[in-house]
């Protein structure tokens, strides 16, 4: 693994990927963005990512299926669920199926950065969450 954290971001809302890709790049993530769950699954079959961020409610394939696929294929990978349909039952289901974290939409870029930093820490690869903070402070 090159020093960068490998992140796959899956959300059928294109804007999410467009905004989060640069946001995560700032803290040293290499982000691959997908809007189509099928293509994401194909890619996930090929490559082991450090972190997978996925929406839950999508048309053809459910985020939960992506979660299960990743947990089976790459047990080391941390999966972060993001959803606009957050409910206690859904949150518990996601956790039960092995999600690393569960974030309700709408969230701020920092919210996700913080969670990704935590995920990286859990993987043993400390990432510089403050990179963005420093940049912000400077800018």
């Amino acid at each position: 693994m090159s020093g960068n954290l490998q992140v796959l971001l899956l959300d059928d809302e294109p804007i999410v990927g467009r905004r989060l890709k640069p946001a995560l790049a700032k803290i040293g993530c290499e982000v691959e963005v997908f809007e189509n769950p099928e293509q994401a699954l194909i890619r996930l079959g090929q490559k082991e990512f450090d972190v997978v961020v996925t929406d839950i409610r999508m048309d053809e394939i459910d985020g939960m299926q992506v979660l299960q696929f990743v947990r089976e294929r790459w047990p080391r990978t941390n999966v972060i669920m993001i959803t606009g349909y957050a409910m206690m039952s859904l949150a518990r289901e996601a956790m039960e199926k092995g999600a690393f974290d569960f974030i309700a939409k709408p969230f701020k870029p920092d919210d996700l950065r913080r969670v990704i930093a935590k995920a990286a820490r859990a993987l043993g690869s400390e990432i510089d969450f403050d990179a963005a903070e420093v940049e912000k402070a400077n800018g």
Partner: protein
Amino acid sequence: MPVIIVSADDFQQGREIAHRVAGVLGYRFLGRDLLARVAQEKQVSQQDLARALDEPPGLLSRRSRRQRLLSEIEAACLEQLLEDNVVAYGLAAHLYVRGVSHVLKVRIINEPEQRANILAQTGNIPLERARKLAQRQTGGERRWSQDAYQLDQTDPSLYDMVLSLGTLEQDKAVEIICDMVGYRKFQPMTYSRKCLRDKALAAQVRLALMERFPDIRVEANDGTVVAYIQSLKKDQRKKQEQVRQMAGELPGVRHVEVHVIRDYFGQAAQSSR
């Protein structure tokens, strides 16, 4: 790590179990000790606080004062629960912490007969009287929770798990709770922490505004506070402004929205739903 809330109809054993669970898991135990602190900070009597939690509503009890005392407890307790790894007991937390996925809510029940036995022993009273007392306690619990939180705390659907001491030893109950909390389902996450934070903030805002607006209902979402107050049409604007100002000064509040409910009956119907 998770938060555990224990409620029991057998007060003594419930407390023991909660305490032991905290010991086994190395969690903090949050019990009635909290009342002493609240009493000190808010200049109210600790006895009154305890009574607000224990005594079913009587004809002469002043509901608004009781609700205020309960709000004090609620706000203080929620603040404590924000830090994980807590076992809460005896603070009615099962009634105001709902919909938070990392909170495991456990109800401990015991056979009426055994409860009567314990009451007879500890209170040094005849068994027959103890039986009646036990029965009254159950009815009292129900009435109390319905009056204070519009919920029946003997309703099993409020809980994630109901353990019966009629079939389980205390040891086993402790073991089961400790096992259960290990499930990933009850792991805290960004979303559930946010939910709990929202609740804590809402409780703080409500507490701050309660004296002025006894019927206020507050919801919070990530620093945005929505307050529902009752008002006659003519006072509406003034009151809205007041709420906005009072709530806006509180820490953690970024934006305040005030909804005025003019339909008293509709409100009554809604709050009892």
